[in-house]
């Protein structure tokens, strides 16, 4: 865990420490993912991409694009 102004973003095996205060959408774009292709979960609840990230948040990103 980083300092108390950071939050954690997880996607599959990857993890990023990000600054709080930005939207989830901004954070998704910042780590190079497509907001259309993921949903965000915080505290086991689906959250809107416009949600502002709070310090020490842990955000799990779930892929929504399936192949086949």
């Amino acid at each position: 865990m980083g300092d108390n102004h950071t939050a954690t973003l997880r996607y599959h095996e990857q993890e990023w420490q990000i600054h709080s205060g930005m939207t989830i959408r901004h954070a998704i774009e910042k780590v190079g993912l497509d907001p259309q292709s993921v949903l965000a979960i915080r505290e086991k609840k689906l959250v809107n991409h416009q949600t502002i990230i709070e310090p020490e948040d842990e955000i799990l990103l779930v892929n929504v694009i399936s192949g086949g």
Partner: protein
Amino acid sequence: MAMPQHRLKLCADHYVAWVERRVARTIESLGMFTPEERLLVAVSGGKDSLALWEILLRLGYQADGLYIHLGIEHQGYSDVSQAHAQAFAASRPGASLQVVNVRARYGRSIPELARGRGRRACSSCGMVKRYIMNRAAREGGYAVIVTGHNLDDEAAQLLQNNLYWARGYLQRQAPVLPEAPAGLARKAKPLCLVYERESAAYALVRGIEYVQQECPYSVGATSIFHKQILNDLERRSPGTKLQYYLGFVRARQDGFLAPEEQAQEITACERCGQPTTAGAVCAFCRMLEAEGHS
């Protein structure tokens, strides 16, 4: 849940109710099936098929599940998927799940069958699943096979068919395919107007546990590339995917696509009795015979 494509923002409770109403309207408006008919839902353990089964049960349809264990061993993919399908069925009163294990029944897993044919796994997988689904529907007396194809799946398929002007595939791409001679069951796709992210969100909000890992054979699939292209369009212009696919469905209804001049003749396979367009013996039986099974 924000849905700029529909100009809607809904809370969790209203969101799941909205998705269920949307699917109910799709079933009715496209004449997919009636509440009196028995449905066989093809479940993979993934978000779309389990979300669809949940919706159909909540809408009061007689919907049983069929899980096909493909024998994909990479990270226990098939076992994990089956466990999710079984856990779902076990936690829903009245939900009945039939499991067909390809290796146990036919002697070879999908990867082994594909290697024997010298083809990609996806090609053999599609053919084997269609065969098993139709056979299970016939033997179980089900009126319709229902699959979890969502709007993104259908729009990506339409894009591929458009790019190559695959006229045969365009004529056969439809939200509901009627039953055909020789015992080919009706097929329907009730999620065809539900975005993939809407389906995933529905599963998450409803607390449905589904397999998160992707089929290892889907890595680099053309369909994923086409979905990404459509997502780029969607980002610039929300609603593009829906208009693209809905326009196609309406064009079909209005007779834009002429019937195939030389429709493929469907006959019963001499070996197994299943419908086939491949002549006297169906592709599935030919594949098993080449493998030394029957």
